[in-house]
């Protein structure tokens, strides 16, 4: 039984096909999703979504964050932004990281919400830089 994977950005449905397994970067850690997974809703941190078909990674997509809804037969990734790993521009990723670091340094630590947003951005930017090498 295959797993129906959907990768959706707010602007369009990027990918919808049956795969063997997908690894998504949950905020609490990476999740490998196989068919028959228990029903789960999770938020995502910035990182790579790896698509496995026939025991190999056939596609790697970078997401900046978002949510995933997982049921027994389906995995829907609602991503904020999606870039194919091969298409990441290293210069842009570095610039984003520098920007996020600056924002984080200038942060008022008492504002928990701003803290969460800025740290999410930093994690996502760091993950983007890291995933170029990965």
């Amino acid at each position, binding site marked *: 039984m295959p797993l129906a994977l959907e990768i959706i950005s707010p602007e369009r449905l990027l990918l919808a096909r049956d795969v063997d397994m997908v690894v998504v970067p949950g*905020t609490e850690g990476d999740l490998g999703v196989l068919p028959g997974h228990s029903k789960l809703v999770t*938020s995502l941190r910035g990182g790579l979504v790896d698509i496995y078909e026939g025991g190999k990674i056939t596609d790697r997509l970078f997401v900046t964050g978002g949510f995933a*809804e997982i049921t027994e037969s389906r995995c829907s990734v609602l991503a904020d932004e999606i870039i194919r790993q091969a298409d990441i521009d290293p210069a842009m990723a570095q610039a984003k990281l520098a920007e996020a670091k600056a924002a984080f340094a200038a942060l008022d630590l008492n504002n928990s919400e701003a803290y*969460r947003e800025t740290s999410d951005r930093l994690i996502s930017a760091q993950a983007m830089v890291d995933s170029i090498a990965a």
Partner: protein
Amino acid sequence: MPSLKILRNRINSVKSTQKITSAMKMVAAAKLRRAQAQAEASRPYAVRMAEMLAALAASEMGNPNGNKLLVGNGKNQTHLLVAVTADRGLAGGFNANIGKVVRQRAAALAAEGKRVKIFTLGRKGNDSLRRDMRDQISGTKNFVGKKIITFADAEDVAQEIIRGFKAGEYDTVTLLFNRFHSVMTQKPFEQPLIPAAAPTANDNAMEHNYEVEPDDGTLLDRLLPRNLAVQIYAALLENAAGFYASQMTAMDSATRNAGQMIKKLTLDYNRARQANITRELIEIISGAEAV
């Protein structure tokens, strides 16, 4: 009876107007197709988002300490109306209808003793509401010169609205936009944003049996602002599609009216021409008889 030259000029001017309106109709039709495709493409995300939210919100709904964006801040005094209109005109009653609904709603709320603030999205709505409700307009944004509306635009608006809500500038937020029913009809529609529309009884049947990571509250904190942006994005896209549809219809009837006008003027022109010929003939004949 106007002279032949005047009639000829008028026919030519109506003809060139007709050329313009029919070109605008073509352009609107092409843009409508693009806008519809964009709205179509954004639907899967909105559908999944609504599903997830319905599952999570059902458990949080009755909780007065739940997320403020979901259950409201407990007050009901100041209302924010977000009026979504187009940036351009020449689209029949499209923009005026929203203006009318906003005025009615504002008057009804004022009669109940509530305070009303208005946020205008789109230039035309701002232009018309500014005339008589200038001091109630708390914010405005338009997309003049932008070819397509991106999700980032909607997110900016959502953040602005959430910021005002958190600062206590208003207690509830309602979105007013033209819902795209078909190419022929777009009707003003009211959608509550804060507090979020309660999941219907139908959704409650779908008992929340998801595992949630990290936990319900944290996930809702992330999900709700996102959902607000999604709803605004959807409204902006419907507004764009509705605008082009409305403009297409308006330009179509303008082209048809111009055609009728040309017919009528041509008839007048020919009558005048024949009357002139008849008169000249009578003059010649009576001149000849007199000799």
